[in-house]
């Protein structure tokens, strides 16, 4: 319980102290908007997004779930004698097929 209180306190202090030191008068909307050589900002500053970033994120989920399946197996390996070991190896084989496909593409 003390740990929770201390961690909460530390993070709140780190968040709140900059507000004490920031000056309120030197931020106004003109200063905060995008800079385009003195002109008014033309449009949004976003560029075209390559979809491969999203693919990386999706593949991260998939392999993260695979790791999630690994966790209980690793803990209880002495109870599931050989059968459990080989069932995990089958799981790994199926996922390695997917991984090879991903590597080739």
């Amino acid at each position, binding site marked *: 319980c003390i740990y929770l209180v201390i961690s909460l306190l530390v993070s709140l202090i780190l968040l709140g102290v900059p507000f004490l030191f920031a000056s309120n008068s030197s931020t106004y909307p003109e200063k905060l908007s995008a800079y385009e050589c003195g002109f008014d900002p033309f449009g949004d500053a976003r560029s075209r997004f390559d979809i491969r970033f999203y693919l990386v994120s999706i*593949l991260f*989920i998939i392999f*993260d779930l695979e790791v999630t399946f690994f*966790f209980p*197996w690793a803990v209880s390996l002495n109870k599931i004698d050989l059968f459990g070991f080989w069932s995990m190896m089958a799981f790994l084989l199926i996922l390695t097929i997917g991984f090879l*496909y991903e590597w080739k593409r």
Partner: protein
Amino acid sequence: MILSVSSSLALVSGLMVVRAKNPVHSVLFFILVFCDTSGLLLLLGLDFFAMIFLVVYIGAIAVLFLFVVMMFNIQIAEIHEEVLRYLPVSGIIGLIFWWEMFFILDNETIPLLPTHRKTTSLRYTVYAGKVRSWTNLETLGNLLYTYYFVWFLVSSLILLVAMIGAIVQTMHSTTKVQRQDVFRRNAIDFRRTIMRRTTDQISDSHALD
């Protein structure tokens, strides 16, 4: 006390996901919903699943939502004047949801109205847990890979399908990229790559492509 804090925060954040004007605020409240649900799971005694919620849901799925918010130029919502337009249909769906909730909220196990405050609920001790208490991970691991291994392998197939599906969907656009096949490129006879036609136009055609 933690139950009431977590669950109330979860409800409020869930409401704010829908109501927030800025889409980034929406995603942040979404993350808060998962945090609170993770806390609720901790109270149920499912410590493994609480941590997995944090890692998988927040670390991966909320990041996915964040990507979507980043990618598309979602303007800050200006349609908040027309919210009453959706009231009939959404009201019906909400009422159906509440009606189904009342099937679960049996007053014996999950008290809805504070009528039985005086009576203490029966507590029973699981003595097997006092001899050797198994962690969540151990119990899962003991059963998942031996007795229920079929479902485990089915889940691996589902993950495989998801992986290949995602790759096929996105690699569609990059397969149109022209690649050089080095061996073919070396095998072309240079004398015959440019052919002059009988008309005046000189067209450049690769003989083997």
